């Protein structure tokens, strides 16, 4: 059986918190080696979608598949170990642990330790601060550095699919640019990326495809060529 | 309509319990009375714990304060001269009626709660729990050995006993007070601090002041409940007001559902009933046939049932909802 081309597929995904729907039936595909954007206003259901993929949302409906394999009903740690890594919103690094310890926590989801040194070396090359400050407490890093650490931590898990939840939040524009460049490099290693962002235009211009989500449903799909088309975007946001 | 139901449910249950109590043999009457007293204590506890979300291990102290005072001032001085000649002069010679003694019990409960609450209500979470536990430890220790405020290591008996109906009346007062508080502006403010302390603070609510108020009211009701307890059982001894009472009443509250008055009442009655039935069944009970359970069944079963219900239904039997609130 040949491997399906779609790395991650969502089919009719629904999430509700205490009876209040947050995601109302999303179909979405991230192809192998693709960067797919997901943009939308606050509370549109972006984070809920990511948490549902990870198995961290309460009883979602619909299906999530990783290379054809259903992730329904699996625990977050199981999903992580199958090759999906999440860089959560607000980074969630462990400020009382050292940078190196934070990085090591990323190993938890690796299926094997083969090639670990290589991956670490690659990550160190991508994010030199992670190497430079490895014995510092992670809490002492700046916001941008913490974000780099969070992505580095996700990468050493050697994921097939990387989920990023608003990585640009609170970062200066130049740093964001650099960050997006790095994402490109990561994709080039064969990692498929689902990028959730508030900076819509930047994302649309950067990603292979970008879906606009509002009120828990997909409203519109845009390509890089549509980056300047603010009218459609605004309409989708307000719908 | 719903509001009427919310208060009517608990009161109807209490009234029914009292009605059965007054209509049956005196031995079993006591079981119902004990259950009623437990309702009063648990509801008093609920006023603070349920509305603030902060656990208190100290409430048995307020119950004790009420019970000791109400008991001592209603005992006849002649008996006290025999049994506890070392009491403070006032306590030794005082003799007042049942109703004023209950008022005194509520007053001393409130006073003690205020003294304790003034410093301790600044604490939250586990430190608050441990600090209130320390209050319990101090109260128990002092009551156990200080002969001026009670019988010390002895037991004092002969406290005048109240009728089922007057106990039920006391319990209804406790429930009505708890309900009135819960519906009041203060009750709503305190519950707001429970749900979201930061938001409550931002909207100008002083968590400290609201908690202190609830603690004082809760202490008053606990003191009153203590008065009911002593007039039900007829004896005073420190052992009544220590770990067992603390854990059992907390368990009753959580078991019923600590978010609602209805939960407090249902929890107290349910565990009292189970405990009492099994205690009787170990000594043979007639349930159509003669049922005799092995010794100790009660202890094991009560523990197991409490654990099991919490596991199956962590929000308690009532899910923390008021009576009548489940329909929409």
């Amino acid at each position, binding site marked *: 059986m040949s491997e399906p081309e779609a790395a991650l597929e969502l089919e009719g995904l629904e999430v509700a918190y205490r009876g209040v729907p947050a995601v109302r039936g999303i179909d979405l595909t991230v192809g192998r080696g693709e960067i797919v954007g997901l943009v939308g206003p606050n509370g549109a259901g972006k984070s809920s979608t990511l948490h549902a993929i*990870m198995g961290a949302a309460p009883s979602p409906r619909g299906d999530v598949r990783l290379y054809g394999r259903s992730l329904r009903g699996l*625990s*977050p*740690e199981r999903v*992580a170990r199958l090759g999906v890594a999440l860089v*959560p919103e607000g980074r*969630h690094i*462990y400020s*009382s*642990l050292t940078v190196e*310890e934070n990085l090591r*926590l*990323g*190993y*938890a*989801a*690796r299926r094997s330790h083969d090639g670990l040194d290589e991956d670490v070396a690659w990550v160190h090359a991508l994010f030199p601060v992670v190497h430079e400050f490895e014995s510092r407490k992670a809490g002492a890093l700046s916001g941008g550095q913490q974000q780099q650490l969070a992505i580095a*931590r996700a990468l050493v*898990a050697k994921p097939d699919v990387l989920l990023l939840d608003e990585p640009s939040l609170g970062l200066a524009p130049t740093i964001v640019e650099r960050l997006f460049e790095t994402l490109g490099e990561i994709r080039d290693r064969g990692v498929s990326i689902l990028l959730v962002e508030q900076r819509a235009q930047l994302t649309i211009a950067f990603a292979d495809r970008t879906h606009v989500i509002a009120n828990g449903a997909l409203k519109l799909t845009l390509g890089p060529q549509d980056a300047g088309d603010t009218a459609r975007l605004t309409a989708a946001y307000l719908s | 309509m719903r509001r009427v139901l919310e208060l009517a449910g608990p009161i109807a249950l209490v009234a029914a319990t009292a009605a059965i109590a007054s209509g049956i043999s005196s031995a079993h009457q006591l079981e119902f009375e004990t259950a009623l007293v437990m309702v009063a204590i648990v509801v008093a506890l609920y006023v603070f714990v349920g509305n603030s979300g*902060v*656990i208190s291990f100290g409430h048995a102290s307020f119950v004790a304060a009420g019970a000791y005072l109400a008991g001592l001032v209603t005992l006849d001085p002649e008996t006290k001269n025999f049994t506890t000649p070392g009491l403070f002069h006032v306590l030794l010679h005082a003799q007042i009626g049942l109703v004023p003694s209950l008022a005194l019990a509520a007053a001393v409960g409130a006073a003690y709660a205020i003294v304790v609450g003034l*410093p301790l209500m*600044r*604490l*939250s*979470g*586990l*430190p608050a*729990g*441990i*600090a209130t*536990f*320390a*209050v319990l*430890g*101090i109260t128990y*220790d002092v009551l156990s*050995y200080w002969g001026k405020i009670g019988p010390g290591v002895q037991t004092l008996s002969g406290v005048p006993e109240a009728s089922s109906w007057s106990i039920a009346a006391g319990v209804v007062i406790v429930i009505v007070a708890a309900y009135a508080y819960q519906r009041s502006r203060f009750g709503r403010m305190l519950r707001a601090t429970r749900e979201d*302390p930061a938001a409550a603070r931002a909207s100008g609510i002083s968590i400290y002041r609201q908690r202190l108020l609830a603690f004082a009211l809760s202490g008053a009701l606990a003191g009153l409940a203590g008065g009911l307890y002593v007039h039900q059982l007829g004896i005073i001894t420190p052992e009544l007001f220590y770990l067992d009472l603390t*854990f059992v009443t*907390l*368990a009753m509250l*959580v*078991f019923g559902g*600590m978010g609602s008055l209805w939960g407090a009442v249902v929890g107290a009655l349910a565990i009292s009933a189970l405990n009492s039935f099994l205690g009787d069944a170990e000594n043979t009970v007639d349930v159509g046939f003669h049922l005799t359970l092995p010794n*100790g069944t009660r*202890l*094991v079963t*009560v*523990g*197991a049932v*409490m*654990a099991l219900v*919490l*596991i*199956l*239904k*962590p*929000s*308690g039997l009532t899910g923390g909802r008021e009576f009548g609130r489940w329909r929409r």
Partner: protein
Amino acid sequence: MLAAVNWGQAIADAIALGALYGLVAVGIGLVFGVLRLVNFAYGELITAGAYVLAYTYGWPRPISILLCVGAVVALALAQELVAFRPLRRGGATPATMLVATFAVSFLLQAIYLLAFGSRGQIVGTLGRLNSAFTVDGVDIRWILLVTVVTGLVLLGATAAVLERTSVGLHIRAAATDFRTSRLLGVRANRVIMLSFVISGVLAAAVSVLYTVSNPLVQPTMGVPITIFALVGVVVGGMDRLWSAALGGFAVGLVYGLFSDVMSSTSSVYLPAVVYGLVIVVLLLRPAGLFGAWRSAQVERV
């Protein structure tokens, strides 16, 4: 009203009590750290271990002690699997969890009462360690040294597991942010089970050490130990293992010292005095004596 005190002796006795409470505090603090669960039924683990020692008296000592450790660890895991895990699954609030641990504690005490009687059983495993050598007029019991050394070794071993192993790293991460560590692939249940295993081993160590000087086991033996250790954990500060350990030690030490300093007739008020001190400490330092200096705000239960 102070009694004439042999200070050396008073300190030696107090250290013995402190070391023991310190050990218990670590066991309680570890599980609290990971799960934010105050396990009131921890004392029943100690009691269970002591019963095993009592009933295996006469067997080769190492076997008796190994059985004790095995039984206590098994019971600790059973507590987690049968009671606490289903509760967490059901989304229980911290208050419910706490009361559930009371229920478990109550249940286990009832079972001990029915199975082993109210009167108690004598443990004789390491009775010899109760003997003493004298230094400068102070009797120092061997058990004091053994307790202190065992305490330090176990604390060190626990710290080493936490600091040096990857599963230890996972435990620390889970203790800080449970949800995120699961998202990173940390196997939550394995981490939790391991912390119960470690806390079980610590409880078993307490069973062995405590029964040397207090050889009679009865059903409620664990309750006062748990209460004082728990007070110690909170007084010391719950955020770190060593602060919990020091808190337990401090409470035991102070209790032991006051027990010698207070005159014989006023010693009935010893618990009241110690609890009074606890309240003062909590008011001045809600995060604990050895807790972080900056944060006075502690998460609510």
